[in-house]
């Protein structure tokens, strides 16, 4: 009956995943956005006041083009092979950052009090 236990573990993992996904998707937006390369902060924005703009963020030979429009942020273009960050669309959940693993780029919501070096306020 060992496989029964394994089957139960499988089902439990699946259920856990479903619940976790729902929790992540329901996390609300915040107004402060941070763009980072690994742990180094490149940009901080307040989305409610930031003007519409596009930023080209180079990484070696590669680059990501980040667009800020109507108080939302996304990766518009990327030179990485998989384009996952582009396909993720606009940043929606505070629990789920947009990441470009090949270029080590992370775009996520942050708490406002940490955004001391905001460049566009």
């Amino acid at each position, binding site marked *: 009956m060992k496989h029964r236990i*394994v089957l139960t573990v499988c089902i439990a*993992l699946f259920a856990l995943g479903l619940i976790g996904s729902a*929790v992540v998707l329901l996390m609300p937006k915040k107004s402060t956005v941070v763009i980072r390369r*690994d742990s180094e902060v490149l940009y901080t924005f307040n989305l409610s006041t930031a003007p519409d703009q596009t930023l080209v963020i180079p990484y070696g030979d590669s680059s990501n083009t980040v667009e800020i429009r109507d108080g939302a942020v996304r990766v518009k273009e990327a030179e990485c092979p998989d384009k996952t960050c582009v396909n993720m669309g606009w940043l929606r959940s505070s*629990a*789920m950052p947009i990441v470009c*693993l090949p270029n080590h780029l992370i775009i996520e919501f942050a708490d406002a009090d940490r955004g001391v070096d905001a460049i566009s306020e």
Partner: protein
Amino acid sequence: MKARRIAELAVLTAVALIIFIIELQIPNPFPIPGIKLGLANIVTVYAVYRYRAHEVAMIVAVRLLLGSIFGGNITALIYSASGAVLCLLGMLLLRRIIDERHLWTASVLGAVLHNTGQMAAALAVTQTPGLLAYYPFLLVSGCLAGAFTGLCVQFMLPRLNKFLEKKKE
């Protein structure tokens, strides 16, 4: 190692690579890094149940290295490699517990372990705890993809065994 054994391992590796490269051509509808069908792991799961531990490790290592070169995404190697190591260790233990008739559950756990390894590597490289938010999605996709590849192997095994026996006669 016998020449026949080496040839078998080489054929399996080649099949895995072909599946891997064909899968690269299928557009991925899920915009989350790490989510994949992982069809090439059909070969891995089969090998886990048919070959010795070091032989499986050889197949997977060559597949990973050549796959990342052919696929043109060498930076992703660190994620897939750490996933594969964890997955292999787990599945080699699981094959002692789970017999071939329930093989697909071993495959599910293997897939989840693969995603766990990937996630750990991504956390270590980017130092971003926020990435953990992807983990639930990886769990769901890992369970589904693992069940699919596991069932593929389960349906394939009896046919392949029949075929191999005929060859030997």
